[in-house]
């Protein structure tokens, strides 16, 4: 039903993204890279979701979120970049109350709750904090760091205006009077808004399990019991204890730490039957960081199964497991008490030998599980999408990004608890599908405005402008201005209104042009938070005929020092920043950026946008999504037919028939114009000067060449070949895949013993293959369903039933499947007599004694090994791990990029994964490849700090050639000097760093200017600092 005429005037975006956490932001960035307009909605007062709370996340133990951003601008921080993104509109404090219409044309009704502070007027000065009389527990820190009714959002939050918590506010009006800008409006009403969008992505995230519901662990009652989220804030330098490990009861050092796993996970009694998947990793990280913060800390982790989430996480976990001071105890904690005298936490548990144990600790950390957000029910209802029995968005195994309503996509923890890596991938998949519903032209490269004639020959004339950004900066500016008057080489020092205002813009333009200035230092409140200021500055520069490089911006706020979440205002720091900026500008030549011309490679071969290598679920998903985004795609598969490992599945996969899915995708690929070549291999590939790849294909019919702008590697993995347990010698010994075939044919396997971790988590293959536990559970359930009398025993090391697969584990135990744990140093032994039944002997790790299990079939859960990769991949510089899988550019933020322009990967070639994940990765890789192709030209034009070589000085040592991560350096062999391939140069400056004599230079960062900046920085050594107010 088309929407009525009354909606014609509504703001129209291509995609509405609900939830501005990591998944929502990633989806939004990819979509804007593809030229789509996006509305980004969140119920919180600011965007960023949970990651304002996280300093360091696994597997890198760093924040690194600034790597996430897919677009063009110099990446700084995803929330800040969102504020600057012209295609993105942000709706904080906003709920979706209804969605009408259909895919391609939805009408969203929104309810925006009041902030009670006008973001346009609030300067974040903090006067209101001094007068607000009420406080209560903080939503992030719990009771550990209370918060006032009016409060400052986290540093990096957008919008950064203060917020009033209506549940605490008493309407006393003190803040209204205290606010110098009149920004507080206690009677601000909620608003109803509406918006039109072609597609909707929902990624509202998760909510931690309320730990007080697990009464026996005493959270909220005992003094020294905290949740993992509170502990996360304790170990954060901006959190409640500013990175110090202390006992909440008395503030004394917390050295003996206990971590309790699965609190509100895998627990039917509290209605959380599923595994939250990420808590084991969070605990491993927290224990390691605790040890880093205090070398004397000892960490004890009480756990049931260690669930590292696959290949990379297994490596991470292994490092933590063997770290000194960290002890893992496999058990279930029965209760937590506290000593009334010492307030120590006393943990009571039954160890594996069946003995009751009691240990005391300074602090217990409950690794809480994660559930759907509180608003999930209302949101699902408003969106008209179904939820599954666990309360998460219902999606299917092979259409994992699609909700039950066409045009509405789901990503991230709203589908099930998951880590950043998986959330980022899912966001990419949702973005790809949403973009196919909302066609748009990619943005064209902006022509740089013309410079004023003769600029290059003008002597430098520098002006310093101080923006009047708010009362809180007044004293700072006075001190600064006094000092600036003494600075040499400065033609003007002036005060102007803030550049965020039109008055500031006009004043700057008028005074700079009066004074004939050609270099400007602008000191203002952080302009990055104010997109208007950036636009104003652009207008000023165009008016003056100056390039961007004629300006240095200096933030009045310094980055908060460690242990402080309030921006510092340091007059000495600001003075240093300003004189460094001035010193560099005075020496900076204002030459136009050399034009980079890239002659297109002569069409020696058919030109395509993308080539996908590998026709499994990942490759098919990538190829189809790219073709539906309008790209010309070739899909190459070595096998005679498409489908890959998906063909091995017997029967349904979580309710979907793989064969039907495959047939439907193949048909859709045909409609979308994907060229498919089976029986074909890519035998050679080389990067062309125009940044495309020339590929040589070989098939039984002969060889041919094609050229493509992007490559997607989806070569998959293979099941390992077991070399033990009489496999290959006795037909009763088989792999899970082989069992699947027999079950598919209706063969009764008899009594079955399954052995997990065969050829996985071994010395030779140290990684976890991720899928084998779930596969074993599915097969065990199938056997029990068809032949209930059959005995099924699963021998395992850690039963890794992630997420909803835990329900299979539960069902299997209820159906009588036996689970016996073995230790890796005591692997099961198999006796396979020619006459008589098989017999498996295993030492039960729980009982500590051997038991014998007769069986008709022995099923080996073999791990996955990487498919053989073509040698040219490594020649192109694509990194391959020692285990044979590809290494992504950044495990969290660029999990599908390979560090080479235009080359992406998806599926099991990056490590063993479920079919569902292969599909998601394929679709996400499509989004990344399409974004890369759309931005290629603009990206090239955006690199200002391009490198160049002074040939007179170049000794031809090739250090720069080897150090350049972008292949932008080549040797000119005849002349024995290095040359720059400008089209490849990303302006990173590594070449300038390794060059010993300055032959390698970088535009805008040439050595003479840099030396001046350093010298200006050193000036402070020779003068007495001004007195400072301490920020915190």
């Amino acid at each position, binding site marked *: 039903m088309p929407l009525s005429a009354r909606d014609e005037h509504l703001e129209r975006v291509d995609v509405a993204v609900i939830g501005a956490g990591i998944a929502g932001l990633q989806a939004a960035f990819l979509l804007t890279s593809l030229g789509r307009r996006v509305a980004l909605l969140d119920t919180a007062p600011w965007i960023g979701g949970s990651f304002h709370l996280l300093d360091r996340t696994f597997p890198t133990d760093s924040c690194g979120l600034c790597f996430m951003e897919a677009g063009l601008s110099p990446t700084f921080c995803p929330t800040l970049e969102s504020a600057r993104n012209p295609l993105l509109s942000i709706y904080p404090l906003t709920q979706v109350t209804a969605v009408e219409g259909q895919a391609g044309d939805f009408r969203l009704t929104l309810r925006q709750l009041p902030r009670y502070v006008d973001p346009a007027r609030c300067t974040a000065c903090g006067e209101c904090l001094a007068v607000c009389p009420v406080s209560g527990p903080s939503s992030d820190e719990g009771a550990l760091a209370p918060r006032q009714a009016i409060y400052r959002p986290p540093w990096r939050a957008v919008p950064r205006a203060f917020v009033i918590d209506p549940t605490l506010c008493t309407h006393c009006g003190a803040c209204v009077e205290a606010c110098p800008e009149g920004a507080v409006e206690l009677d601000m009403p909620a608003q109803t808004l509406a918006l039109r969008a072609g597609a909707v992505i929902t990624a509202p995230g998760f909510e931690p399990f309320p730990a007080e519901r697990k009464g026996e662990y005493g959270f909220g009652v005992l003094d020294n019991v905290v949740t993992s989220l509170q502990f996360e804030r304790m170990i954060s330098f901006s959190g409640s204890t500013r990175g110090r490990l202390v006992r909440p009861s008395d503030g004394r050092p917390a050295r003996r730490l206990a971590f309790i796993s699965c609190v509100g996970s895998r627990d039917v009694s509290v209605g959380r039957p599923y595994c939250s998947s990420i808590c084991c990793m969070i605990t491993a990280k927290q224990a390691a960081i605790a040890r880093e913060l205090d070398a004397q800390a000892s960490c004890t982790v009480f756990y049931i199964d260690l669930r590292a989430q696959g290949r990379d996480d297994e490596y991470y976990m292994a490092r933590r497991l063997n770290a000194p001071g960290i002890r893992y105890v496999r058990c279930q904690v029965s209760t937590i008490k506290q000593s009334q005298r010492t307030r120590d936490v006393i943990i009571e548990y039954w160890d594996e030998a069946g003995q009751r144990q009691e240990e005391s600790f300074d602090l217990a950390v409950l690794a809480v599980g994660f559930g759907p957000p509180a608003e999930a029910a209302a949101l699902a209802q408003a969106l008209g999408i179904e939820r599954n029995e666990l309360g998460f968005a219902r999606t299917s195994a092979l259409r994992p990004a699609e909700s039950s309503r066409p045009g509405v996509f789901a990503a991230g923890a709203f589908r099930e608890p998951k880590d950043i890596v998986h959330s980022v991938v899912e966001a990419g998949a949702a973005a790809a599908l949403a973009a196919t519903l909302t066609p748009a032209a990619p943005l064209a490269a902006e022509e740089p405005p013309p410079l004023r004639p003769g600029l290059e020959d003008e002597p430098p004339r520098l002006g310093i402008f101080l923006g009047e950004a708010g009362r809180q900066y007044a004293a700072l500016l006075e001190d600064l201005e006094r000092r600036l008057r003494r600075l*040499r080489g400065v033609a003007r020092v002036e005060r102007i209104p803030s550049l965020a205002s039109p008055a500031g813009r006009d004043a700057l333009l008028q005074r700079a042009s009066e004074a004939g200035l050609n270099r400007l230092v602008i000191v203002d409140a952080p302009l990055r938070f104010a997109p208007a200021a950036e636009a104003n500055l652009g207008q000023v520069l165009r008016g003056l005929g100056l390039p961007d490089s004629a300006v240095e911006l200096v933030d009045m706020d310094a980055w908060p020092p460690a242990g402080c979440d309030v921006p510092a205002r340091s007059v000495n720091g600001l003075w240093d920043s300003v004189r460094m900026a001035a010193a560099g500008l005075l020496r900076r030549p204002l030459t136009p950026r050399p034009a980079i011309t890239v002659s297109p490679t002569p069409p020696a071969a058919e030109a395509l946008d993308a080539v996908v290598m590998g026709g499994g679920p990942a490759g098919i998903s990538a190829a189809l999504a790219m073709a539906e985004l309008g790209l010309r795609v070739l899909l190459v598969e070595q096998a005679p037919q498409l489908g890959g490992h998906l063909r091995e599945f017997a029967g349904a996969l979580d309710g979907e028939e793989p064969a039907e899915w495959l047939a439907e995708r193949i048909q859709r690929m045909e409609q979308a114009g994907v060229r498919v070549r089976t029986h074909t291999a890519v035998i050679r590939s080389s990067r062309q000067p125009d940044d495309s790849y020339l590929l040589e294909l070989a098939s039984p019919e002969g060889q041919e060449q094609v050229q493509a702008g992007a490559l997607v590697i989806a070569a998959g993995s293979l099941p390992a070949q077991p070399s033990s347990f009489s496999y290959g010698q006795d037909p009763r010994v088989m792999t899970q895949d082989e069992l699947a075939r027999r079950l598919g044919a209706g063969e009764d396997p008899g009594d079955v013993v399954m052995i997990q971790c065969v050829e996985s988590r071994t010395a030779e293959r140290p990684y976890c293959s991720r899928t084998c536990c779930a596969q074993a559970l599915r097969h065990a359930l199938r056997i029990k369903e068809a032949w209930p009398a059959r005995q099924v025993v699963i021998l395992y090391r850690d039963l890794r039933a992630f997420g909803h697969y835990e329900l299979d584990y539960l069902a299997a135990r209820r159906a009588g499947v036996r689970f016996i744990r073995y230790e890796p140093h005591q692997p099961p032994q198999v006796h396979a007599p020619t006459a008589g039944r098989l017999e498996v002997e295993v030492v039960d790790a729980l009982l500590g004694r051997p038991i014998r299990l007769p069986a008709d079939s022995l099923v080996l859960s073999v791990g996955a090994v990487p498919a053989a990769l073509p040698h040219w991949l490594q020649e192109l510089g694509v990194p391959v791990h020692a285990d044979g899988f590809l290494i992504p550019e950044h495990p969290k933020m660029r999990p599908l990029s390979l560090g080479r322009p235009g080359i992406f990967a998806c599926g099991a070639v990056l490590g063993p994964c479920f079919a569902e994940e292969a599909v998601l990765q394929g679709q996400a890789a499509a989004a990344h490849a399409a974004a890369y192709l759309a931005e290629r030209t603009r990206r090239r034009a955006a690199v200002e700090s391009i490198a160049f070589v002074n040939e*007179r*000085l*170049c*000794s*031809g*040592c*090739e*250090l720069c050639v*080897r*150090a350049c*991560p972008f292949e932008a350096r080549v*040797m000119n062999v005849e002349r*024995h000097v290095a040359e720059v391939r400008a089209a490849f140069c990303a302006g990173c400056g590594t070449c300038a760093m*390794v060059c*010993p*004599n*300055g*032959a390698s230079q970088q535009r805008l960062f040439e*050595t*003479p200017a840099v*030396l001046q900046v350093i010298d200006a920085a050193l*000036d402070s050594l*020779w003068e007495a600092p001004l007195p400072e107010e301490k920020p915190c």
Partner: protein
Amino acid sequence: MAIQAWLPIEGGDAAGALRKFLAGLLSAGYVDALLVPCRLVGEEAVTPALVESPEALEACEPLAPVMSHNMAVMAGRLTVMDTGRRVGVWLRPCELRALIELTKLHQATLDHVLTIGVDCLGTYEVADYAAMVRAGKQPAELWRGAADGEAVPADGYVLRSACRMCEYPTAASADIRIGLLGLDFPRQVLVESEEPLPVELPPAEVPARRQEVLERVRARRTAERDAAFAAWRAEVPDLRRLAERFATCIRCHNCMVACPICYCKECIFRTPTFDHEPEQYFRWAERRGVLRMPTDTLLFHITRLNHMATSCVGCGLCESACPSHLPVATLFRSVAQSVQALFNYEAGRSLKDELPLATFREDELTDLGK
């Protein structure tokens, strides 16, 4: 190992036998030319020379214990661009190691080079060598201690300090290796080669003693090195002491010119980068009250150190060239040792080791910044 052979020696003239061996390589066409130390102008000076004719090898001084230049630099001059000619280069251990570094830095290629590495007992300063010759002494008598690995300099002379603490008595990775230590010198000279040689030589069985002597030499010199480093580090614990110790540097750049690793076509300290505007000098003087001229002297050394420390082979020519007799070699080598250890890199060990500056390993230097 393909070949181990004795060089036939007549009348105890090991140098003569080596000349003959080299002439054999040249006349057999095994190499097109030889880069060897020769006495060309006067008796006092032995310098690298490029020899095309076998007869000219009469002037060759293979065992003269003096090193006027690092041969690696000369080899680089000949090979930085391919001429198609094959040249044999006579190299002491430090020269071979420098050549390997320069090859990695693309200032030389080994494609058409036959490296001939020779055992080394150490060298005299150029001036000392000349003085000894003038005084009628035989500097090559140093080799009398070769059998025991004992370098006993002539009375009143000492070996260069870099040689005294050099723990590399052999040129282990050369194509042809000339063994002199731990053998019956001058009656025995060992020739080792992976490839067949164009001259017939009687096969040799290397006495076990050689290995023992080499080990002893290494141990002794390592101890000497460590003592020198320890003394230096105690003497110069901080930047202030370093500045004081280098106060007599006249900034002649000799150390840079002599250094085989300083390969820059033009050092950044000879470009106008450090010629500041007059205004700048006054500003600095104003800031501190007084400004030493020329400026940037310590910065020159630290920058040079920063550039060559990963590849320093410890040949010590920098110190030999210093007119102020500053212990530059000890400074550079002691820092180089720490830096190379940091990257598990040993300058000159192998062509296969990647230069630390040109390699990125995600897991290295993880302690930094903590």
